[in-house]
Every structure is written in structure tokens, then in C-alpha cells.
């Protein structure tokens, strides 16, 4: 019976490793300059955790197999130092592993989240609200006009609460429902929430950042591949959360210029 348990354990372990080793499920292709760091970190973590998992399970199976029919009088070997020694050793081993993963992981993460955007990055503002994202481009003057929350009116499509008549900076601001960006240009995304917590997540960019009401947060990234990608809200924000999405449209520079011109004509 014990031998059957050992064999089953070994089989389950091997079977669960097959789909991962066979790359049956792979994340969508990365379209950013920093994404490879995240991907490498993910596969490093997967490899390390996977090797530890397989080793632990196979050793467990081997032990069950080897010591299943112990005869009365057989000597029991103890871990040096007993339970205390065992726990200390495990603590040190697992602790080192977690710290090492954290240390190397932070390098990938910090490269994205803790560095400032470069000076020639292009600012785009995003406002998350129940249940849609809207984007704002500063227009030719390069300045965002001030936001007046009391002027927000969705029925007249004044999404950001701009006072075009009185704020000169707002006059040329371009508000869109889709996020158009030129390829290979660093984007500085300025994020704020209109109501509750939301999240900005683009799988292909390997980026995810929460919106926190009352906080102005920002992200920066460079998209390297033309295409249309989904921006989804990954923070449960209410009834319509499941349908809170927008599209990131990465275009070549001339296409982007045309797109922005068209958007400006629609204001």
C-alpha cells in the first residue's frame, strides 16, 4: 500500500510538471522594452520553485518507498539536532530562497516602477471611473487644463470636467476613449481615479498598477509592437467591473499623428 502511495505521488508530480515544461500555456507576447525583465523573473521563479517542488515530492516518494516496511527493532535515524534543527534548517533554506527571489525580482520591478520617466517622454492622462477608462492628451500647447470635478458630465461627454471657455490650457486638450500611442516612444501615463479604486492592466505590456482615489500615480513604458491590446480593470470596482475596459492602440508615428488629428477634430 505504501509503495502504491509512493508511486502515485511520483506520477502526480511528474504529470503536473509536464504542461509547464511543454509550454502548453504561455503568456501573450511581450510588446514592451521592459517586459523581458518581468518574463525572465517569472521563468526564474518558476524554474526555482518548480525544481524545489519536484525534488521535495520525489524525495518524499522515495522515503515512503524505502521505509515503508520497517521491521520492529529497526533504528530510527533523527535529523541532527532533532525537530529544532530541522525547523531551523528549513527556515534558513526557505528564507534564503524567498529573499533571493525578492532581491532579484525587485530589480526587474524597480526598473519599471521606481525610475522616473525620461524627460522626452510623452504624457498621457488616464482617468478611471465606473466603468470606463478615458484618456487625455495635452494638445499642441503641451499643457493639461485643470480638472473641475463639479463640471464632469457624461451626458455631454465632458468626462474630465474641463472648463474650455475659461481655461486656456483646456482648449486644445484631446479626450479619447481609446489609448493611442506611437510605437517606440516612451509614454508617461498619469493616472487618477474619478470615484473608487481601479486598476490599469495590459498583459502585453507586463504592467499592472492600481488607481487609488485621491492619489496621482504614474507609470512609464515604451511599446514596441504595432497592434491593438486590451486595457482591463483588475480591481473589483462595482457592478460593471467585468465590462470595464479600453483599448491600447500602438501605431507607427505617422498613423498616430493621423489618429490624434482625427481625435482632435472630434472634440
Amino acid at each position, binding site marked *: 500500500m505504501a509503495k502504491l502511495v509512493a508511486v502515485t505521488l511520483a506520477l502526480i508530480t511528474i504529470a503536473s510538471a509536464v504542461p509547464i515544461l511543454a509550454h502548453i500555456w504561455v503568456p501573450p507576447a511581450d510588446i514592451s522594452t521592459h517586459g523581458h525583465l518581468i518574463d525572465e523573473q517569472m521563468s526564474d521563479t518558476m524554474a526555482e520553485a518548480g525544481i524545489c517542488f519536484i525534488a521535495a515530492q520525489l524525495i518524499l516518494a522515495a522515503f515512503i518507498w524505502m521505509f515503508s516496511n520497517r521491521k520492529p527493532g529497526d533504528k530510527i535515524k533523527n535529523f541532527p539536532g532533532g525537530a529544532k534543527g530541522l525547523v531551523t534548517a528549513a527556515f534558513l533554506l526557505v528564507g534564503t530562497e524567498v529573499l533571493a527571489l525578492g532581491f532579484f525580482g525587485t530589480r526587474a520591478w524597480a526598473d519599471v516602477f521606481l525610475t522616473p520617466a525620461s524627460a522626452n517622454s510623452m504624457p498621457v492622462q488616464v482617468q478611471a*471611473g*465606473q*466603468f*470606463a*477608462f478615458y484618456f487625455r492628451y495635452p494638445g499642441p500647447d503641451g499643457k493639461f487644463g485643470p480638472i473641475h470635478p463639479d463640471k464632469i458630465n*457624461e*451626458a*455631454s*461627454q465632458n*468626462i474630465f470636467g474641463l472648463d474650455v471657455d475659461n481655461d486656456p490650457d483646456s482648449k486644445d486638450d484631446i479626450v*479619447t*476613449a*481609446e489609448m493611442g500611442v506611437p510605437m517606440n516612444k516612451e509614454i508617461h501615463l498619469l493616472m487618477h481615479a474619478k470615484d473608487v479604486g481601479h486598476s490599469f492592466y495590459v498583459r502585453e505590456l507586463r504592467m499592472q498598477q492600481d488607481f487609488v482615489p485621491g492619489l496621482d500615480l504614474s507609470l512609464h513604458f515604451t511599446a514596441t509592437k504595432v497592434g491593438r491590446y486590451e486595457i482591463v480593470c483588475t480591481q473589483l470596482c*462595482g*457592478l*460593471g467591473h467585468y*465590462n470595464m*475596459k*479600453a*483599448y491600447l492602440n500602438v501605431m507607427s508615428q505617422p498613423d498616430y499623428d493621423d489618429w490624434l488629428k482625427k481625435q482632435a477634430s*472630434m*472634440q
Partner: protein
Amino acid sequence: MTKPNRHKAIAIASAALLLTLVVTMSQRRVKAAPPESGISGTIKLEGTAPHQRPIDMSKEPACAAVHKANPVTTENVVAGPDGGLKNVVVYISEGWSGAAQATTAIPTWDQKGCQYIPHVMGLDVNQHFKVTNSDPTSHNIHPMPKPGGPNHEWNKSQPSGAPPIDAVWGTEEVAIHVKCNIHPWMSGYMVVVKGPYGISDEKGSYKIENLPAGNYTLTAWQETYGTQTQKVTVAAGKPVSANFTFKAK
């Protein structure tokens, strides 16, 4: 019951049935005849209508595809080329002594192409209406009557293919704003009044029919410009004209 008696009963019953039929039919004929009196007129906009922003529905690809050729705009002020103002509700705010119109019609508030059709709907107090979803996507219907008033706010989801929602407003209210939280650009109004009303068409024309003679105060409501009133006297058999002009702000 004896045989002759039964015949008699049948004869009386048939006569009664026939009489009822004749009476109802003749009444219907009276109603179908041209109205004794009515008010009609045109709503005009003075000045240039404010710019109506095109709506980008890219968030909902199914709806964006519907409007690909003709992008829709906001509908806060819908004015025709000759200044006729659409979606203005003209109703009797004073002088109506009758009850709410006893109508059995059940109007439909449809959600189609991520828009409300109609954009402005008139309703009698206690008149049932149904909310339908013609889109391949989910909507939520969120009418927002004045807080603390007798009509209560509600918010219901309606997935694609779901059965119509039956609803009713018990008290007059001009006007109840309706929105969809999933598609923030969706906006419409329900105008709940007691008595007859008219809604202006693309040319700005409206008509209120079947009005008994009397002195009335007419109110015209427009979602951006608010209300205007004027007094009219309706004499039996004489249609009255009443025009309104809103100034573009």
C-alpha cells in the same frame, strides 16, 4: 329552468351583448374622429446649437461597429437646420382637472447600439413601460429621480437576450435622468406627467390632442435649457397654436 324561459334568457343576454358591442363601437368611432380641440405648435432654437460631441464607443466593439459609418453624438440639444428643436416635451402644468390619461399603451424604452431609443420618453403617471435590450451586450438601466422624492431610484442589469423589464412611475416628475453605468455615454430622460402631452419631432413640431375646452398653462421642457411656460385658452372645436423659443446659451 323551463324551455321557453331559457330561450327568453338567451334572447335577453344576446340583446345585452349586442348593445354593449354597439355602444363600445360607437364610442370608439367618436374617439377616432378628429379631436374637438388640440394644441399644436413648433419649438424653435434661437442662436447656434452648442456643439454635440461625437461619442467614441470603442469600449464596446459591438456598438462601435453599428455606428461606424455614422458616428453618433451627444443629444443634449438636437436642432434641425431650420431651428426646430427636437425632444422637447410640452405638457399641461396647470388647468388639467382630469386624471392621468387612461391609456393602455405600453411604450418601449429600448437600448440599441448603446443608445436609448427614444432619447426622451413621455409617460403618464402609473403608465407601465417596458425596457428592452436589443444589443448583443449587457446594459444596466439606472433611472435617477430626485433624491428624497416619491419616485425611487433603481438600477437593474439587463443582459443581452434578457426579457423586457416592466416598470412604472407613480408620481409626476419632470424629468427623470436615465443612465447606464456600463456605458457612461448613454443618457436619456423620462418625463412623467399627468394628462396629455406632446413631444417635438425633428422639425420641432408637437401636438397635444383630445383636449377639453378650458384655460391651461403649458410648460415646455428641454433637457439643457429647462422649462418655459405660457397660458393658452382652448375653445371647443378650435385648435390652438402655441410656439416656444429657447435661446441657445
